[in-house]
Every structure is written in C-alpha cells, then in structure tokens.
C-alpha cells in the first residue's frame, strides 16, 4: 500500500512533469514565435477536483506590464528559500532559460526589452478565457479569489469597488477572502458583501467589541465536487488595522489566530471534509509557518505577498500555491481526493500573456462598460518616461523614486516617505504616462499627502519599526509589505540585526550631512494610517510633478546600503 506521503511525492513528480511538458518548452516555442494559447493552457486533467486560484488582482481589469522584484530578501528559516529567489537564482531553481517567456513572466532582468517582445500581461478578459477553458475540462472547478481585488485603480476608486464586483461576479468565483477591500470603509464593505453571490470568508475576522468570530463573515464553505466533500476556509490579512487605517473598519479585529484555524479545521474534518483548502491572505512565509503549526490542511492558496511560484511548496503534507498579482497569473490545481484524503495533485501556474490568450468577448465588453464613464479622464497623457517605472522590491523602485521626488518638490520637503506596498503596474521606456498609470500606483482611500516636521530620532524609529515588519525572523511578526520608500535621505540597513539596531548612517542627501536626531526635518509623505491626516491626494501631487517635467527619468538610486543578507 502506498502511504500518503508517497502519493504526495508522486503528485509532486507529476507536477514537475507538467512543468516540463507545458511550461519548460516555452523558450523554444517563443523563439519560433509559436507560443500559443493552447500551449499555455495545456493540462492533462487529473483526479476528481480542480481548484482555480486568482489573488491580489488590485483592480487591474486591463493588460499591464508588471516587473517582478530584484530584491526580495528572506530572513530566518526562509533565507534563500522560495519565494525569496530572484533573477538568476530563480531561473536556476526552476530551469528557466534567459530571455524565455518564463524569464519575462517570473524575473526582472532585461525587463524592458522582454516586455517589448512578449507584450503586456493580465487583463480579466484573458483571465476569463483561461477560467472558461479550465471549466470546459472540469465544469465544476472551484474558483477562489484570495482578495485585494476591490482596490487599486481609477475606476475602482471612483466606483468604490463596484467595477470589480461587477466583473468578478461575471467570472463567478465560489469564495473570496479580504484585505484592501476593508479600506473602502466598513459600511461599503458590508454593502458589497451583502449582495455577493458567493461566500465571503475569514475565520480570523472577529468582532472587535466582543473578540468573537464575526457573524458577518463565514469561516468556511463546503463544496461537493467529484464525490468529495471539500471545505474552503478563509484567512483574511491578519494585520489590517495595523498596516492599514483601523479607524476605517473599527468594528473588526483580525490577527493570525492559528489556534482558531486549528479548531475550524478540526470542525470541518469532523463534519466529514475529505479535503481542507485554506484561501489565505497571510503572505507566503506566514502560510508556510501556519502549515507547520496547524494540522490537517491539504492545500493553502496563498496571497498577499504577490509571489508567483512555479511549483507548489510542500510543508509536511500541505501544499502551498501562490499565484502572483495584478491579474498576471492564474493557478490551476487538480487533486485526487479519495477515501477522505488528498492522494495527489497536479499544478500549473498559467501566465496571462495578453497577446497570446484571446480575450473573452463578453468579459471584454463588461470591462469596457465599467471603464466607459471614466475613459477620457483616465486616458489623458500627463508625460512620458525614459526609464522603466516599477515598484516591486524590498527597497525603492523607480516609480517610488518618482513619487518621492514629486513629494519633495511639490510639497517643498527635505525628506519624502512613500509606503512599501507591493501593488502597482510597471511602465517601460518610451511609454506615455497617463492619469490611469499614476492612479495604478497611488489609488487608495487615504491618499492625503501630508507635510509635517519629524525629528531625526523619530525618522529612525519609523525606519526601525517598518524594517522589523519585514525582516523579523519570525514570519508571524511580518506584515508582508516592503520597506518604506524614502526620498531626500540615504541610510544603511543590516537585515540581520534586531529592531532598533538595523538602521545606521542616515544622511540628508541635499547636504551630505548626517541626520541629527534632535533636529526637526520637513517631511512629506502619504498613506498615513492616522485619522485626520491632511493634504492634497498623492495622485494630484504626482500628476503636477510629471506635467512639469514632461519626460521622466528614473535611473534608480543607490541611497540604501543593505548588509546582513
């Protein structure tokens, strides 16, 4: 008799085989200009259950460019482990050829030229084509949305998420969990949840007054598929009131709450679940840790940290699947579920090459309908860029440099701070910068660009605090963003040190002098989590700055010295 572990290993091998037959030959195919939709979708249907995972779409309805990170440092047990591999290390780990479509989709090097060759990625009309193709193979495939869906664009902001709800409803997900959705404010979230034709899940969404599970979000939903009983448990982003403005959703409390996760897993197993799936917005390292703490989870569909991972990562007998961001990828996971357990799996991370995958006509029309009232204002060209503008990475991206420069000049500040979020599409050299592009990297419900004074000492406290949210060796203490972006100031960071000792050599770039702990500096920033923050919205600040420049150059700075890696 084959043990469960053996089955999993067989499954893993099958997964690798699929990679070899479908994924790995792209370089050759692309060289022949023969990459086709059929090859991207090729999948030998396996087992009796299919899961489809999308996550962190950030309201990107249309195809975009998205550059993956160059710097994504893992700490503690995750040092040098997936998903903390980038560039050449990533290519080596997965046998990816330089310049191949996989290279373009999954790493950062030579991004601009590969982007010109392979084109834009994503677009929910293309995602619809992929979802429909999987449903043609397996009509009862379960589509799961990991959240960060109702946030991140001009239309999403102006419709308070309605555009995304309309489009996703047409895609017919079976369940969803949440993060940035709550920044629409709790009243709007309640309004949207009430009308959802699918399950709104979060075992860790609690009533803040009573510190008990919220009655407004279910912990799990059961599905009967292929003769198996499947429980999908939701796990919302644990640190919403800390990383985002808690005053916008004061009735709710979150947290990792792995002890309740264990209770819920035991509960659904007790009710006869053959398969337990966690739809998670924890972030990848937190999910890995949780998989080791909570027993009885078969599959974690991981979101939040925007990692695109070509093969599932196995922790004990739990597989963790991560499906990128911004509509760039869809994961398909086929499972063999029998005799009350998962016997094997086959997986494919499907990149949405928008020039290869045909848009679904109905979905394209629905998307255009959402955009039509705003099209003229979104399409206005504000300037051009000479360099690739991107955000992803642990430290400043070039888009962040542009935003910080805008804050320094438009708000007449010495130092600029910009949040280390991971969303925001990229632009390639020579592209126009439209209003929509600016909103793609700035859109949020707390955009006020404040101008204030901070002491050098307080600036260090901020840097130390944020650094510990990223580089604390215990994943449960990480919030999943990147380092706060900074303009007008340089610093050194030793990743390996504890909080309070990581940051040194803080330097004011305009004078070259050391930051004086006792002196006040004029600081401009945005996305403050504090209620009552005042200032013009960041998109107006950036637009005004780019309009004055005409053509933006952003070669990348070298103002942060990183050690202890």
């Amino acid at each position, binding site marked *: 008799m084959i043990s469960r572990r053996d089955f999993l290993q067989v499954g893993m091998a099958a997964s690798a085989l699929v990679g070899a037959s479908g994924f790995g030959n792209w370089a050759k195919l692309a060289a022949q200009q023969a990459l086709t939709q059929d090859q991207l979708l090729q999948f030998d249907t396996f087992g009796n259950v299919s899961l489809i995972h999308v996550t*962190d779409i950030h309201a990107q309805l249309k195809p975009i460019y998205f550059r993956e990170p160059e710097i994504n440092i893992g700490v503690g047990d995750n040092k040098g482990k997936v998903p903390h591999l980038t560039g050449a290390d990533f290519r080596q780990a997965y046998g990816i050829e330089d310049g191949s479509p996989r290279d373009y989709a999954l790493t950062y090097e030579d991004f601009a030229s590969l982007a010109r060759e392979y084109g834009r990625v994503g677009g929910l009309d293309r995602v619809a084509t992929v979802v429909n193709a999987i449903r043609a193979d397996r009509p009862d495939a379960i589509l799961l949305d990991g959240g960060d869906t109702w946030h991140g664009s001009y239309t999403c902001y102006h419709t308070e998420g309605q555009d995304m709800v309309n489009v996703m409803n047409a895609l017919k997900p079976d369940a969803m969990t949440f993060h940035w959705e709550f920044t629409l404010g709790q009243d709007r979230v309640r309004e949207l949840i009430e009308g959802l034709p699918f399950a709104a899940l979060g075992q860790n969404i609690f009533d803040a007054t009573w*510190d008990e599970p919220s009655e407004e979000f279910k912990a799990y939903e059961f599905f009967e598929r292929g003769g198996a009983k499947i429980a999908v448990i939701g796990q919302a982003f644990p640190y919403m009131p800390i*990383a985002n403005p808690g005053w916008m959703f004061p009735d709710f409390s979150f947290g990792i709450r792995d002890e309740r996760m264990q209770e819920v897993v035991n509960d659904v197993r007790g009710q006869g679940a053959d398969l337990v799936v966690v739809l998670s917005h924890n972030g990848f390292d937190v999910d890995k840790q949780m998989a080791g703490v909570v027993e009885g989870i078969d599959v974690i569909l991981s979101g939040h940290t925007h990692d695109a991972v070509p093969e599932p990562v196995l922790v004990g007998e739990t597989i963790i699947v991560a499906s990128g961001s911004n509509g760039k990828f869809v994961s398909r996971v086929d499972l063999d579920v029998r005799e009350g357990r998962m016997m094997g799996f086959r997986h494919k991370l499907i990149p949405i090459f928008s020039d290869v995958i045909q848009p679904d006509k109905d979905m394209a029309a629905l998307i255009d309908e959402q955009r039509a009232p705003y099209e003229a204002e979104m399409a206005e060209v504000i300037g051009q860029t000479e360099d690739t503008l991107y955000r992803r990475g642990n430290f400043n991206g070039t888009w962040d440099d542009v935003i910080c420069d805008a804050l320094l000049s438009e708000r007449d500040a010495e130092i600029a701070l910009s949040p280390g979020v991971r969303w925001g599409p990229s632009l390639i050299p020579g592209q126009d910068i439209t209003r929509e592009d600016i909103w793609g990297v700035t859109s949020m419900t707390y955009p006020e660009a404040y101008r204030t004074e901070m002491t050098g000492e307080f600036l260090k406290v901020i840097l130390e605090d*944020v650094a510990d949210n990223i580089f604390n060796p215990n994943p*449960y203490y990480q919030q999943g963003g990147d380092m706060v972006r900074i303009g007008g100031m340089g610093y050194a960071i030793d990743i390996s040190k504890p909080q309070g000792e990581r940051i040194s050599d803080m330097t004011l770039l305009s004078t070259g002098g050391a930051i004086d702990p006792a002196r006040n500096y004029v600081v401009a920033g945005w996305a403050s989590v504090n209620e009552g923050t005042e200032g013009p919205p960041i998109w107006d600040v950036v637009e005004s700055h780019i309009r004055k420049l005409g053509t933006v150059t952003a070669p990348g700075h070298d103002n942060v010295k990183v050690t202890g890696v």
Partner: protein
Amino acid sequence: MDLTRRETLAVGGAALVVAALPMPAMASAVDDLINEFTGGADLADSGVDLIAPEIAENGNTVPIEVSAEGAASIMVLAAGNPTPPVATFNFGPLAGESRAKTRIRLAGTQDVIAVAKMADGSFARTSKNVKVTIGGCGG
C-alpha cells in the same frame, strides 16, 4: 483578580522605582514576582496556554486569554510595563474550567507571561512576545 486597589497601587509604586533601573533589574523584578507566586518552585514548560496577538492592533487594549487544565490560579505579568502585575485569576472547586479572558494595556513591545498554579501545587509557565508597533504599510 485577587489584587486589591491598595495592593495594586503599592505594587505600582514599587514598580515605578524599578522602572528607572536598567533592564536586568526589571527582569529580576519580574523574576521576584514569579518567585513570590511560586515560592521558588520549579516551573514546567507546558500545562498553561496563553493566547495573545503577535502584533497588537491597539496597545491600549490587547485581548488575551489564559487557560490551564485543573489550575487553581493563573498569574499574568506584562514584563515590560511599568507595573508588570496584570492579574491573578483564582479558580474555585466549582469553576467549570480554569480559563479567563481579559484585555490588557501594553506600554510597548514586550513579553506577556502566564504562570499557573496547579491543584497539586506544581507550577507551569508560558510567555508570548506581543509587538506594539506604530504601523507599517501592507502589500
């Protein structure tokens, strides 16, 4: 809770003096409180559970839960507060289970410690580091 207001104030007064001392003195103040509770007995690593958030959503009101099967009492300390003693929960013979939930105030990132006195007179200890942060920027 078995601390009267008078006792709390007295302990607070003592702690204020302690707070001005360097960290090792602080740690020994906590050790002293534990020794006072246990009479210097050995502490088992398991037997008492403490549920607290990894990162507090609001340091002024942090929900915690302590439980220990069959415990007669559980003492809770916030090791980094100016006044480390939080509460001691006593469970009589009619208590359904030895479990208590409350909310505590944390002055900053620190360890929360729970020490349980079992019915047989033995003791168990656990702790959890709770971060109080100024807030970051989620992805």
